């Protein structure tokens, strides 16, 4: 049922077939919305998502997974993928301090992360948010004293929302998504470690036209509006 599309124009109603999009798990909310909007705009088209960790997705694509589009949470994972078109940055995410509702640990800023008596969670340096955090602390010349190096942002956020830690460094989008459980504290140095989300079509994909149309849609103003609402910054 994957028919070649007649046009590159995202608004062309003749676009049809299934577009398979591999997207980072942190994009689950916003991309699900984008997919619905895209399908509404292109009645013949259907978007199928595969949400998982960016590195797992890269691995899958390299093992021959049937993907048309890859949206990664970090350029590094995009680089691991071999058969792809030119990646474009479609969103940015900045760090924010997340504290449990009511801030029981009285966290005021980054310097509290060096306090041995406060429970602190950071992401591990191997994952994007951890790498970003490392950059920030280096820039402000502080040595954080974390109790845990979480494997991803969600794990860190879970510990905040359950009050298990007094503070964690997570993404702005995560704070926004969990706004009835955590409070966010912005800090100026966040700009020094902006995380970029690249998107690209995949050359081995079955629906090249559909892939192109979807990437264009994400980059369009309508796409940007959805992403901004979720807390992402425009590149």
């Amino acid at each position, binding site marked *: 049922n994957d028919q070649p599309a007649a046009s590159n124009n995202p608004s062309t109603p003749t676009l049809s077939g299934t577009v398979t999009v591999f997207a980072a*798990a942190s994009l689950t909310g916003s991309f699900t919305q984008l997919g619905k909007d895209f399908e509404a705009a292109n009645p013949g088209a259907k978007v199928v*998502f*595969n*949400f998982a960790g960016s590195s*797992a997705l890269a*691995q*899958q694509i390299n*093992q*021959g997974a049937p993907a048309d589009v890859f949206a990664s949470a970090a350029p590094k994972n995009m680089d691991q993928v071999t058969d792809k078109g030119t990646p474009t940055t479609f969103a940015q995410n900045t760090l924010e301090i997340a504290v449990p509702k009511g801030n029981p640990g009285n966290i005021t800023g980054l310097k509290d992360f060096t306090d041995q008596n406060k429970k602190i969670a950071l992401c591990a340096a191997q994952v994007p948010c951890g790498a970003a955090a490392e950059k920030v602390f280096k820039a402000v010349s502080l040595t954080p004293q974390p109790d845990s190096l979480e494997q991803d942002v969600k794990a860190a956020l*879970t510990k905040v929302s359950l009050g298990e830690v007094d503070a964690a460094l997570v993404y702005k989008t995560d704070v926004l998504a969990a706004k009835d459980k955590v409070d966010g504290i912005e800090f100026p140095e966040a700009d020094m470690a902006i995380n970029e989300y690249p998107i690209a079509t995949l050359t081995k994909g079955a629906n090249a036209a559909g892939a192109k149309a979807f990437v264009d849609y994400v980059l369009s103003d309508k796409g940007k509006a959805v992403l901004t609402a979720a807390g992402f910054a425009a590149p």
Partner: protein
Amino acid sequence: MSRRSRSTTGRLPLVLLLPALLGLAFLLVPLIGLLAKAPWSTLPSRLFSAEVWTALRLSLVCATVATLICLLLGIPLAWLLARGNLPGRGLLRALVTVPLVLPPVVGGVALLLVLGRRGLIGQHLDAWFGISLPFTTAGVIVAEAFVAMPFLVISVEGALRAADPRFEEAAATLGASRWLTFRRVTLPSIAPGVVAGAVLCWARALGEFGATITFAGNFPGRTTTMPLAVYLALETDPDVAVVLSIVLLLVSVVVLASLRERWLSGLR
């Protein structure tokens, strides 16, 4: 043995009862924690979405089919380990536990390396038969069976070792081949062990996440089982994740509670 409540073996000794209850509490209290946390007021509305039911059905189907495959391959394997008189049996038995020790995501990667479209075997499957397992429902079943099979094999092997082999001897003197003996004498006598193994296997398959998402991906309606749905929900709304987990648990408890008693009573 007795239809009356007066037990022939007397009161339960405290030294066993105490740790038993402690163990039970340890397993169940976290569940109570989850239930306490569940957003009961909005729960119904969150449940009546088509996706939840699709994921649930997919989970049940895949776990059941995976269990059947495990039974089909695992019981003979357990029998080979217990009765086969193989050299290096100890090593083989240890190797069987590999999928248990392997972090599930790595297990998924390993499956991709072998059965993926570019994998050792997968490339031939694709070229010769046009079969591609990853990212299909069949792939979910393969991933679940891979992760869950050791439970069945080890449980059944334990049961086989505990069974009295002289009944098999008696069957042999009656002219029964090993296969007939296996079917009609061995298997029925180890039925409780097989049921135990199948329960472990099914439950493990039902809860399987890492290998599934890595090998089969996360495609709603095709490969998104409940645990994957829970994972996605954790990204957007942790409350929904809790609710989905509870649904999964509830269904599994109902299935196990009803099925097992019926099986076991049928056997006794």
